[in-house]
């Protein structure tokens, strides 16, 4: 049983305040959707929690089972059980997917996985996400299409089994088939009930496949409305206009 607790988080980029006091608690077994217009600070929340150097924390705490993640380095946060599926995964030349995944699994588990077991897990994970076996030998994200990058992010999610997963616009740029494959991956990950998911999205489309327990509306750097899945339906019908006006 794990809990991610975001308390009054304030974040700036180059002296510009982006997050203005975010409060949110995600527990194992729960899926929270954060929805909001472009530029509302949704991605800033994701990257700030993960520890991207571009973001400066100006106030608040992010506790994972009582440990303040903000005191930890990026890799320590990941080893503490946090995972961020990125919106734009970077290409890393010369580092193969299989080498990268083995290094990541070794770091997260604290010991190298048995080679045969790892090969089996990897193949199973890739098959489930309809990723071609040849991918393992390719350079990390290099020349991957948008959909391939996202499926590869979900492959990592399934292999690394974090306590809390933050998915930053994983649905963006996916066609319907790819969205279904990716959603199934997220649902497999949720199945155990031992993990929490914070799903950041602009669109309601993915929520038809990945049902949230809670929906939070984000505008101008904070949560402005909260509710159950029905709130997503309201956003689908009415858009964000009411919130962007109110926030100004």
């Amino acid at each position, binding site marked *: 049983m794990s809990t991610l607790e975001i308390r009054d988080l304030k974040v700036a980029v180059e002296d510009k305040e982006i997050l203005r006091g975010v409060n949110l608690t995600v527990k194992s077994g729960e899926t929270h959707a954060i929805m909001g217009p472009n530029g509302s600070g949704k991605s800033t929340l994701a990257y700030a929690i993960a520890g991207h150097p571009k973001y400066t924390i100006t106030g608040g705490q992010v506790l994972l089972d009582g440990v303040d993640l903000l005191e930890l380095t990026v890799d320590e946060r*990941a080893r503490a059980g946090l995972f961020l599926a990125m919106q734009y995964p970077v290409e*890393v030349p*010369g*580092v193969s997917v299989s080498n990268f995944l083995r*290094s990541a699994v070794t770091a*997260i588990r604290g010991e190298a996985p048995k080679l045969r077991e790892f090969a089996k897990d990897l193949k199973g994970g890739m098959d489930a996400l309809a990723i071609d076996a040849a991918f393992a030998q390719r350079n990390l994200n290099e020349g991957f299409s948008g959909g391939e990058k996202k499926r590869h992010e979900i492959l*990592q999610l399934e292999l690394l089994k974090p306590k809390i997963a933050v998915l930053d616009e994983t649905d963006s740029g996916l066609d319907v088939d790819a969205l279904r494959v990716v959603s199934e991956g997220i649902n497999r990950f949720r199945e155990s009930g031992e993990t929490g998911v914070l799903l950041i999205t602009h669109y309601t489309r993915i929520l038809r496949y990945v049902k949230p327990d809670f929906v939070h509306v984000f505008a101008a750097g904070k949560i402005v409305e909260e509710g159950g899945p029905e709130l997503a339906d309201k956003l689908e019908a009415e858009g964000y206009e009411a919130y962007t006006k109110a926030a100004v």
Partner: protein
Amino acid sequence: MGLNEKPLSTLHEKSSYNLDDFEVPTGREEQWRFTPLSRLKGLHNGTAAASGHVIVDVDAAPEVTVETVGRDDARVGKAYVPADRVSAQAYNSFEKATVITVPREVVTSKETVITLTGSGDGAAYGHIVIKVEPMAEAIVVLDHKGSAVYADNVEFVVGDGARLKVVSLQDWAADAVHVSHHHAQLAKDATFSSFVVTLGGDLVRLSPSVSYTGPGGDADMSGVYFVDAKQHLEHRLLVDHSEPNCKSNVDYRGALQGEEAHAVWIGDVIIRVAAEGTDTYELNRNLILTDGARADSVPNLEILTGEVAGAGHASTSGRLDDEHLFYLQARGIPFDEARRLVIRGFLGQLIEKIEVESIRERVMSAVEAELAR
């Protein structure tokens, strides 16, 4: 033979067998401005007497002949005319040359390894000729080690339709000084690939060059270097396209770490009037890992014909990409290991091209050792 001063190109001004045709460099010359002359131990000004030794040991493929010959051997100095002062000094100072011949149409059954070991007792000069006769194929490894003050010229003479692959390892002891010219002369449809790995030495200045004597030649030149504190590692490439329909590709990559680590890369490509249909690309990339390290990278392309198939160059020098490190760290991989993965990937993409497995593994483990520092 006298001074050859064809004003054809500004990139390659003159060459001569005669030492007096070259002034003692002062450091202001374009050719010498990056090289710290004071660390050359006199190789450039005639004060480095040939009192030392670099032992040449050849472990040859059974199909090739290996000879040690005198200065007057007709095969010496045929393909290459010294292009700078130190090269001319080496040409005028060596006592014995090593000549390796791969007979016509012979495909060697294993690589020929030439080990050059410095004995650390003063300056030495050398000359090697590797002659691959028409349609023959060979792999040659030059393995430099030990402590030396050494200037030499190496001629690769690649005959019609022949294929030569060369790996040159500069794995010198920390105090070594090495100034070397590697010249490949490619006949019609000859294929030459060179892989240079420079890791050791206080100062290494290696000038690989290529010329063509017939159409259809193909030269692929790769290099990897790892520069540590106070090291000066310099690579000066010259590809002289004078024949039609030839290719050249240059890809040199280096990593630098530590105070006063200095890498210099000069990439000159000339495409002369007759060299229609030339296809050439040159690339140099430097990864600067710490403050205090410096990379000078100068690609030059001189095109004298309008009819080229392709001609380009690129040069980048920069730090490790924060986004790469963030991505790897966000997957739990600690900073030091993430850094190693990225650097290993950057150099490894080239190192994979080395076909001789034992050499490839040795280079990879040498890079690992550098990364562990």
